[in-house]
């Protein structure tokens, strides 16, 4: 695929002739002083010419090593309730409002525990349980409590959840049950959000994120890029995420899904994706920056490698919620080859 070949051209991180002022600034401000780039500065990174990409990735990699270390955090994700969501996120095949081939299905708890065991066996330290809902109802909360207890009985792994928008009571319950990290994505820039979602607001998403942090859970708050946003909006998103100070940012690239309003959106250019990885790292020097969905399509194998050498320090291993990822062994072997140790389990609660 051409896109993969393009992305693979950025494999060399050797010093290149010519300097780029924003990278000089980044070296001092982010690498040395630990202060993330501003929105305007991030726009400059996203506009760097192709010949500057190896230097941008190199800087992002140095920032990651200095401020996060060499470990890579490995996570598995699973859907406990798939499809039939009442929301209208235009990228999502699980919305019940679109003519998507994804059918509603619930996963039973024994299957969930089995998947947690398999995930832990890969060396993963995180297992995230996801539901396609606007927010959890009592039935789902009861299922989650039961699932957490069963997994904790049998598997040594940190449990995260992603259950949509929460009430304060639900936040408190999840924290009490030992959920150490909660995922709720901003997805896109505030200025682009109404183009992508109309059934809830950006502010509602922020509200859940803030409650999660206030309750002492780690916040995992992600981005989905390549949905037709401008470079300015991509920089805006990175800056808005940085302001939220999440523990983790999963970085998704649009995989246009059949039946969704974004099904005809082209696949993002591989080099733009790598520029975004570098920019997000330079915006958030200390955050866990995780490869999430769409990288297989956008970056291919070589691009995946470049991102791991360009600011990424976490991966979702294996499959996603409704699509398949690279084989787990491919990513794990790549980490060995790159001499990047898998982060070890530290039960936080």
């Amino acid at each position, binding site marked *: 695929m051409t896109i993969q070949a393009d992305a693979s051209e950025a494999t060399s991180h050797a010093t290149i002739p010519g300097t780029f002022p924003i990278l000089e600034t980044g070296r001092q401000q982010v690498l040395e002083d630990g202060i993330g780039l501003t929105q305007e500065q991030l726009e400059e990174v996203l506009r760097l010419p192709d010949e500057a990409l190896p230097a941008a990735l190199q800087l992002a990699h140095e920032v990651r090593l200095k401020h996060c270390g060499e470990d890579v955090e490995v996570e*598995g*994700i*699973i*859907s406990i309730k*798939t499809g039939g969501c009442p929301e209208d996120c235009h990228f999502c095949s699980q919305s019940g409002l679109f003519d998507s*081939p*994804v*059918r509603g*299905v619930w*996963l039973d708890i024994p*299957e969930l525990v*089995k*998947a947690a065991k*398999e*995930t832990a066996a*890969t060396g*993963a330290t995180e297992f995230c349980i996801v539901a396609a809902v606007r927010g959890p109802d009592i039935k789902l909360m009861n299922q989650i409590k039961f699932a957490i207890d069963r997994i904790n009985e049998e598997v040594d792994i940190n449990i995260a959840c992603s259950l949509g928008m929460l009430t304060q009571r639900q936040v408190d319950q999840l924290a009490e049950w030992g959920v150490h990290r909660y995922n709720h994505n901003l997805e896109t820039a505030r200025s682009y959000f109404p183009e992508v979602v109309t059934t809830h607001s950006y502010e509602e998403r922020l509200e859940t994120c803030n409650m999660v942090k206030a309750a002492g859970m780690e916040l995992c708050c992600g981005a989905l890029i390549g949905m037709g946003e401008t470079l300015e909006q991509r920089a805006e998103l990175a800056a808005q995420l940085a302001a939220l100070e999440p523990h983790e940012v999963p970085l998704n690239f649009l995989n246009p899904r*059949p039946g969704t309003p974004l099904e005809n959106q082209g696949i993002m250019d591989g080099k733009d994706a790598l520029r975004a990885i570098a920019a997000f790292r330079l915006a958030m020097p200390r955050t866990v920056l995780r490869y999430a969905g769409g990288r*297989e*399509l956008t970056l291919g194998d070589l691009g995946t490698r470049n991102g791991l050498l360009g600011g990424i320090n976490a991966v979702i*291993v*294996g*499959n*996603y*919620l*409704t*699509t*398949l990822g690279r084989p*787990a062994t491919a990513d794990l072997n790549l980490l060995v080859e790159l001499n990047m140790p898998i982060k070890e389990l530290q039960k936080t609660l």
Partner: protein
Amino acid sequence: MTGVSVSTGSTSGAGFCGHCGEPYDGGDGPPSYAHRECSERLAMEPPRYCAACRRRMKVQVTPLGWSAECSRHGVLVP
């Protein structure tokens, strides 16, 4: 549901495409042309339609596997 189908939802040797649900002979060209992109897609996602009857299947994806269940023809696994 009881049976276990031997089909993996691939685009050959069945009536319907596991990716788009259209008949194999329903495209503009020979089947291999009409559903070439579908075949590529099926390397990166599980089938959504039963290859035998075109019913939408209940698909469950886990970190290290997937299964797809047709109410008439049973469960597909990779």
